[in-house]
């Protein structure tokens, strides 16, 4: 029988960079590591880093870790342009599923119905459902709304039942 110590499980929460490497195969540079820790430990973060510094990459890792480690977790990412979200964020699922078997195992596969349920692409929002009940939402922005109404933080991650 395999025994996993409580201490080892705690480490995933105490060191998100290690969790990202072990569970997702994410290799981050020093700057991205520090950024992930700020995302992980600070409830509100404004990231004004420049283009090409890996904001979307680390946001993906951060949201996936929360969904993987907290059953029933609800998270969302919002892009002002839906197509940008599809092209820069959603494609990372395929990348990381190929990179890490542990990450790939988080989603139901095999039956077409299961796969469709795990990866819903509704017009209003794309939704990824994890085996542990967590969900990641990427809603499509409503272009008919005023711009200021869409000016919300890029990422939202909430405890189950809280709703944001």
């Amino acid at each position, binding site marked *: 029988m395999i025994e996993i110590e409580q201490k080892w499980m705690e480490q995933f929460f105490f060191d998100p960079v290690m969790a990202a*490497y072990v569970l997702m195969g994410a290799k981050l540079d*020093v700057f991205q590591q520090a950024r992930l820790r700020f995302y992980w430990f600070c409830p509100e973060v404004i990231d004004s880093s420049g283009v090409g510094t890996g904001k979307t990459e680390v946001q993906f890792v951060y949201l996936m870790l929360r969904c993987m480690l907290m059953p029933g977790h609800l998270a969302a990412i919002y892009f002002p342009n839906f197509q940008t979200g599809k092209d820069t964020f959603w494609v990372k699922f395929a990348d990381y599923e190929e990179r890490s078997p542990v990450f790939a195992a988080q989603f139901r596969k095999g039956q077409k119905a299961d796969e469709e349920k795990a990866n819903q692409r509704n017009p209003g929002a794309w939704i990824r459902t994890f085996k542990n009940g967590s969900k990641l939402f990427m809603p499509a922005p409503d272009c008919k709304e005023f711009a200021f109404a869409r000016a919300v933080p890029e990422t939202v991650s909430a405890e189950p039942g809280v709703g944001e």
Partner: protein
Amino acid sequence: MAFGDSVGHMVKAYQEFYRDGKQELIDGMFTEAEVKLLMTPTSLRPAQYRPDLPLMIEEWKRNFWDAQYDSKSAAIPRAAHRVLLAAFQSASVDFVGGKIVDMEGELGEDEADAALEQAEVAEPERAAHDEFGTDIEGDASMPMPEGGARMPRGGGDLGVFGV
């Protein structure tokens, strides 16, 4: 994928992650390289190391499995937080001798390396006077101790303390 496969993958990745010894958390939150990066002020931002975070996280770790734990109880008073932050930011400027790493222009994914590299090569400015207001260099009137030079003080030149 079988359960055994996933555990094997995790154990292997865990060993790989800690193999080079660079991933130890020196303050319970950040690695040495991360602290160095965050303590380095740049032209785009001041030093960003926050000493209050590791303190709060240590408290949070101790109560990780306590469902009744209120994280607000670990909050550091705002005044104390400001003192800590100001002290660390001032120390950061001293550490690099007042030189600010230029981060303008195309940096891309090498931003961290660029900051670290420049911080390491920046020559800290030595203090012109010691704590008594005496010129450290070129003051022939000051008697020198036999067998050794006086140690410059202040100015954030950490290298001289090893002399």
